């Protein structure tokens, strides 16, 4: 098995190394990827079109908004599938772990978490809202927000975290995130534009066309953040307890 697997590995390796001589040089500004009119347009016109200083956010949420919407849907479907696979797969109360430590939640750890979790959540909102002017955005902010709930589940136990953010609410928030994203797209369709054509939102927002795109991007990022937060926490909650939703790690 191991010897036989070397054959495709070396075949693929030989082909890739053979192709590597045709790749552009490291950091060449004239390389096909960097010299293409598409990326030149993104770099040159983002400031004029959307007034967003961070080009990555602008391309992510506006120019390629359709793509990002369905990536979010993929994350949502993955969370749903994990739920469907692990729900009721084992009986509650049956423990089959190799080593189980029945310990009280530690005093120092829980107090420190009590101190740190609000800061982490505020930082998550900061990352989400400042995605326009600095690195960040919906995906990163959502992941940090989900990590704060995972931290609660790690330091107390899963019930404490689920009392704050139950699984039903989790899936509700995840679905609401996608609804926010698609809703902004459909709303701009009703206003006369195309799907996810944020510039049409100027008719309901008291700003210019460019600033309408700027603010619609924030709404879209909030939707992405909601979905990612909920799905990351649902993944952890289901995988750490085999779908039983009880007990610590």
């Amino acid at each position: 098995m191991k010897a036989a697997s070397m054959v495709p590995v070396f075949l693929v390796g030989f082909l890739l190394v053979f192709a590597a001589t045709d790749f552009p040089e490291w950091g060449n500004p004239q390389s096909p990827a960097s010299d293409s009119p598409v990326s030149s347009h993104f770099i040159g016109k983002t400031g004029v079109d959307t007034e967003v200083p961070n080009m990555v956010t602008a391309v992510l949420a506006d120019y390629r908004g359709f793509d990002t919407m369905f990536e979010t849907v993929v994350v949502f479907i993955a969370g749903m599938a994990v739920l469907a696979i692990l729900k009721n797969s084992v009986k509650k109360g049956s423990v089959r772990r190799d080593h189980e430590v029945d310990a009280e939640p530690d005093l120092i750890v829980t107090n420190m978490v009590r101190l740190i979790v609000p800061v982490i959540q505020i930082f998550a909102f900061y990352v989400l809202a400042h995605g326009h002017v600095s690195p960040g955005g919906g995906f990163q902010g959502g992941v940090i927000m989900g990590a704060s709930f995972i931290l609660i589940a790690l330091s107390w136990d899963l019930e404490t975290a689920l009392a704050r953010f139950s699984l039903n609410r989790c899936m509700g928030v995840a679905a609401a995130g996608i609804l926010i994203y698609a809703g902004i797209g459909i709303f701009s369709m009703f206003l006369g534009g195309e799907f996810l054509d944020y510039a049409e939102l100027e008719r309901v927002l008291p700003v210019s066309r460019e600033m309408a795109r700027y603010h619609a991007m924030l709404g879209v990022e909030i939707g992405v953040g909601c979905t990612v937060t909920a799905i990351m926490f649902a993944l952890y909650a289901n995988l750490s307890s085999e779908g039983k939703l009880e007990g610590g790690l």
Partner: protein
Amino acid sequence: MGLELFNTFILLLLVAAALVALKVRDLITASVVFGIYSFLMCLLWAEMGAVDVAFTEAAVGAGISTVVLVATVFNLKRKSSD
């Protein structure tokens, strides 16, 4: 030379981390070494100028995926046969 020394050093560390993550028998060790791999990758991307990607990798690859892997391995057998 097309590539800077710093990048080459981190790339070699990456290869070492990937090999160690796949070589060790203890699956929790493998998960933690995979977290190290993700952090090295994040450092490399930050150095390349892809700050958004580096941020995402630091939050997702080194944070969530390590936690999820450890949480799963806790419910499985910890030892691996190879």
